[in-house]
């Protein structure tokens, strides 16, 4: 239907980040929800917790992603951005897609081996996807700011995706 097509179009836009206003104009939060849930599902069950349900980790990842996105949006709005609240959430959520792909790749690599080689592969993949996410989201978000404030907006986005990448990289299955 109409909504599904809109979501699909946005995913394509993230893969090839061009400065188009389609992502900004019709925002929707379905893509971010799906990405967030799948990322949280893939990240659970990986720490040295004694509890055998991955419960708190799922909720942690979920809350981290959404709370982080909200904080970045508030930051950009307080700095005088022209983008609206939900549009910014939409862009940040969709740009988590490369990192979700990285998580998938990491899990597959970890199925094969857990040695140094796999770590280097994972590092390269996660680093590349992190750069892609940050570039894609700044391509959309930094434009809405006056030029002397671009760095102030880019830095929290950088930090946000860095934290997610760190969680992905340090994921070790039990």
């Amino acid at each position, binding site marked *: 239907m109409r*909504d599904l097509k809109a979501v699909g179009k946005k995913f394509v836009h993230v893969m090839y980040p061009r400065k188009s206003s389609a992502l*900004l*104009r*019709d*925002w929707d939060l*379905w893509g971010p*929800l799906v990405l967030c*849930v799948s990322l949280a*599902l893939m990240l*659970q069950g990986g720490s040295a917790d004694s509890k055998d*349900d*991955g*419960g*708190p980790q*799922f*909720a942690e990842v*979920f*809350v981290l992603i959404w709370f982080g996105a909200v904080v970045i949006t508030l930051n950009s709005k307080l700095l005088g951005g*022209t*983008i*609206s609240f*939900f*549009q910014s959430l939409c862009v940040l959520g969709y740009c988590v897609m490369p990192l979700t792909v990285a998580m998938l790749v990491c899990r597959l690599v970890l199925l094969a081996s857990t040695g140094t080689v796999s770590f280097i592969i994972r590092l390269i993949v996660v680093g590349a996807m992190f750069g892609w996410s940050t570039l894609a989201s700044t391509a959309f978000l930094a434009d*809405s700011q006056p030029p002397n404030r671009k760095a102030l907006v880019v830095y929290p986005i950088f930090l946000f995706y860095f934290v997610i990448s760190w969680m992905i990289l340090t994921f070790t299955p039990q």
Partner: protein
Amino acid sequence: MDSSDDIEDVSLFDADDDVSRRSKKSKIRHPVASFFHLFFRVSAIVVYLLCELLTNSFIACMVTIILLLSCDFWAVKNVTGRLMVGLRWWNQVDDDGRSHWVFEARKVSAQGGKTSSEAESRIFWLGLITCPMIWVIFAFSALFSFKVKWLAVVMMGVVLQGANLYGYIRCKVGSRKNLTSMATNYLGKQFLRQTMATEDQAAS
């Protein structure tokens, strides 16, 4: 005779017209929409209450509740509100980038074109109002019993269902003159029906 055409509509064919109108108003025109309107909300609440019994995994419960809440939000916002009570609301971004919220209510035509049935309206508003209140109660109970891991889900429930409630209430009371004219219309019809009924009784 010409001037009392309206009254003639009500009085001469009062008996069966009234019954048919009453049955039309209480018939549910969109049974599928009504069912799904209540189904997602109630099943989200039921899953939240019974999750301890159903499965050991917290994650399965959480994902299920999140999916049900999202489906419910989408269904109520896009489908059931429009079909059952003729209201809709959305966010519009202009060409210059500013966004504003639009709230619309379908005008009730005097010829009786597409009036919403009372049963559907009752179902809609009942479901819309009681479920967010239940989620707020869950929020307080999770907060005070320190079950913090459920707080994320409950917050999501409160936010999504509260947003729909707020949107539809704003649709309903948005155009104030529409509301007062509808109220006058309704009261006028009630009064007319009362007088016709008493006349009927007096006559028979």
